[in-house]
């Protein structure tokens, strides 16, 4: 050992934090030196976001400390974290759409009162972007920029907020919203940042990106560090992330599918090009793809009964009749499926509230039946954390999703449409959701699963379609790398 060893750029020691008595982080230790890209990996609910909030000063740890270059970071103050040189790029952008890039960056720097020299800021924005080999128009309005550009603005904003002295840049799931090309362009920029001495913490659960970018990783599981060091092999990383719980696999069907339940023929518009596919009774057809490749317009077309979409076997009637007959598990359960302030009783009967026996033909509610129905479904679907009178907002994400599944699947609908049904759920809850879909399929339902997670999707899919750039292609095999290739737009092999 020659001379004093410099302290690590960021040191986390003994950090714990619990919510409502449930530990989110439990004695987390790790250190990262200056000038590297370090991956922080973990399943949903492993504690990644709590850790990030602590690093960024949004949350104060119950015990332990964080040090930046050997100096204690006072907990619970984003301003102090910013002064210490920590920059953060959130998964959901924090940009004001109607303002220009310059104004957003000035806003991000939080200068308070005083004059601002927009020209100087614009020059700095160009300079910082240039170092990362990007071109950003400082006068562009955020609303006019694409997702990839917005993320660049966020990164430059975070760097500028540190006054050019950013020591640690935290990126929370930065690639979730990006197209593969945008990811390709982000990665060298992050490497350039690290080469300039900034430590980049790259939070992700996308292992192939971690493999391209991070020589070292910290892996969290259930709030603890289960691995910290050089990046292991892919399989080892997966095992460390998910533990010894075997992944849900092999739920695909053996029986042959029955009659057609959903037909999409030459669907166009909203960025979709000549989309056609069929979903039959007794099969799970999964649509794989990176978010933003046409999932939204496709879902809208199906739910709004676009002319190109037909549902033979289901009485067509009007759209509302159609929706009531669907089992629909929407992408965002809190905003699209549940009425959070209402009780579980009300949420479970919603959609059937006008049907016998829940209401008379005059629309008079029979609330006693609602209650019995709720008690029955809560038991059958194993919902924990509340009874019929509990507001839906008091349940955990996994149990909220069980409520949605109970409501949507208990009547054995002929057609089920599920969009990212495991989003935000931990491994056990995800497995429950996938099993429920497989069980519905086995009972004869046609299931359309639009899902972002390839592993889970392969676990239940009987057929895989890949959506890329608004076009759909049937995957020739269930082989993961081939499907991943199609998701990234590679030509059919």
């Amino acid at each position, binding site marked *: 050992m020659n001379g004093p060893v410099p302290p690590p750029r960021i040191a986390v020691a003994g950090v714990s934090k619990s919510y409502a008595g449930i530990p989110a982080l439990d004695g987390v230790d790790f250190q990262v030196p200056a000038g590297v890209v370090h991956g922080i990996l973990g399943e949903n609910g492993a504690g990644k976001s709590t850790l990030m909030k602590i690093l960024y000063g949004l949350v104060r740890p119950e015990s332990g400390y964080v040090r930046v270059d050997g100096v204690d970071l006072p907990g619970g103050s984003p301003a102090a974290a910013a002064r210490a040189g920590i920059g953060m790029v959130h998964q959901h952008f924090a940009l004001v759409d109607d303002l220009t890039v310059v104004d957003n960056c000035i806003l991000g720097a939080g200068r308070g009162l005083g004059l601002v020299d927009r020209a100087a800021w614009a020059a700095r924005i160009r300079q910082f972007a240039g170092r990362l080999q990007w071109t950003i128009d400082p006068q562009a309005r955020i609303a006019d920029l694409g997702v990839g550009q917005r993320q660049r603005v966020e990164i430059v904003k975070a760097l500028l907020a540190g006054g050019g002295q950013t020591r640690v840049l935290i990126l929370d799931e930065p690639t979730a919203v990006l197209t593969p090309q945008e990811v390709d362009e982000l990665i060298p920029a992050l490497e350039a940042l690290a080469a300039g001495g900034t430590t980049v913490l790259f939070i992700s659960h996308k292992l192939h990106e971690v493999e391209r970018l991070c020589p070292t990783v910290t892996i969290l599981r259930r709030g603890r560090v289960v691995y910290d060091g050089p990046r292991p092999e892919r399989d080892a990383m997966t095992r460390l992330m998910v533990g010894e719980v075997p992944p849900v696999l092999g739920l695909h069907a053996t029986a042959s599918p029955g009659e057609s339940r959903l037909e999409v023929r030459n669907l166009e518009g909203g960025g979709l090009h000549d989309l056609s596919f069929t979903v039959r009774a007794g099969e799970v057809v999964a649509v794989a793809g990176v978010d933003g490749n046409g999932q939204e317009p496709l879902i809208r077309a199906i739910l709004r009964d676009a002319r190109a979409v037909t549902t033979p076997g289901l009485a067509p009637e009007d759209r*509302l009749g159609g*929706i*009531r007959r669907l089992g*629909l598990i929407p992408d965002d359960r809190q905003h699209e499926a549940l*009425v959070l302030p*209402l009780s579980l009783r009300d949420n479970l009967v*919603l959609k059937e509230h006008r049907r016998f026996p829940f209401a008379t033909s005059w*629309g*008079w509610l029979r609330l006693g039946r609602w209650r019995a129905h709720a008690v029955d479904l809560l038991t059958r679907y194993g919902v924990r954390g509340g009874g019929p009178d509990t507001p839906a907002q008091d349940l955990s994400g996994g149990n909220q999703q069980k409520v949605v599944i109970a409501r949507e699947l208990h009547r054995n609908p002929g057609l089920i449409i599920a969009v990212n049904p495991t989003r935000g759920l931990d491994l056990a809850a995800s497995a429950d959701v996938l099993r429920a879909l497989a069980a519905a399929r086995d009972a004869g339902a046609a299931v359309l699963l639009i899902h972002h997670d390839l592993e889970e999707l392969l676990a239940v899919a009987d057929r895989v379609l890949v959506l890329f750039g608004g076009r759909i292609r049937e995957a020739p095999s269930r082989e993961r790398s081939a499907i991943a290739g199609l998701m990234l737009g590679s030509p059919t092999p």
Partner: protein
Amino acid sequence: MIAARTVWPALIPFAAAVAALGLILAGLTLVGYAPGEVLATAWRGLAGSPLRLGIWAQEATPLLLTGLAAGLAFRCGVLNVGTEGQYLMGAVTALAVLLALPPSVLSPWLAALAGAGAGALWCALAYGLDRWRGVPLVLSAILLNVVAARVLGALVEGPLHDPTTAAPQSALVPEAARLGALLPGTALTLAAPLAVALAVASWLVQRQTALGFEFTVIGLNPVAGDLAGIPVESRRRLAALGSGALAGLAGAFQVAGVTWFLSGDAQSYGYAGIAVALLGRLHPLGMIPAALFFAGLDISGRQWERRLGIPHDLGDVAKGAAVALVLAAGFFRGRR
């Protein structure tokens, strides 16, 4: 669980009302009034005799109706802040009907129907501007309040003007066409029990019918309502029409039973209804005490001014304080 979730929030408005009154009394005590005397004056003015009670109920009636109007729309997520304009249009339309038709026992009821219809149409206008022209309802409704006041002004100075005076006021509704008083010496009419019946009916609809459940769902989460197959647009339209009709009905009853004429002077039952709805936490039955509270402060304010020399605006201060306290106490939590 019941205690924590349902009883406690229901007590918030009462606590807020008591606190607001306490605030007023404390202020008055500080500047030298005897709080006992202030309270006694108010009490005598409100409940000193059956006549007084009748007047209290009479004053609360239009407030209850406009409160129900605002509450119905708000619960469904329709921000109808145009109850004032709808009230005025209901009043002036009812007046036109009462002056035009040959007087009979039926006159006030026909006028009430016409007033409700006019209120509904006025709200439909605001709603339509929102829906089809993209004018936010809050703006279109508020601006139509101003338009309604001008329309009323023009009518009472024009076609409905009382030819025997130069003052900007309408002719008087003939006695045979008026809504009769239930209690001699007051203007307490059948409108009062009817308003209470409408409050109970609103509550039953909200609690016990599929329609009311759908209103609640739409008000809390229209996207989930839509994906559950509820025709959100048509329900909102219905809530807007119902809201306008209730506000118009309030105006019609006021003309047919209480004032018997209209002048260009400002009225504010429509605006006050919004505050009543908020104080009642959008619960139709909660609006009954809320309307009585507001009417009580109006009456007490006048009594305090006359007997004790306290400015009557003080009553308005208490109203504002009570509503602000209710809103501050987490209005949006546990609404059902």
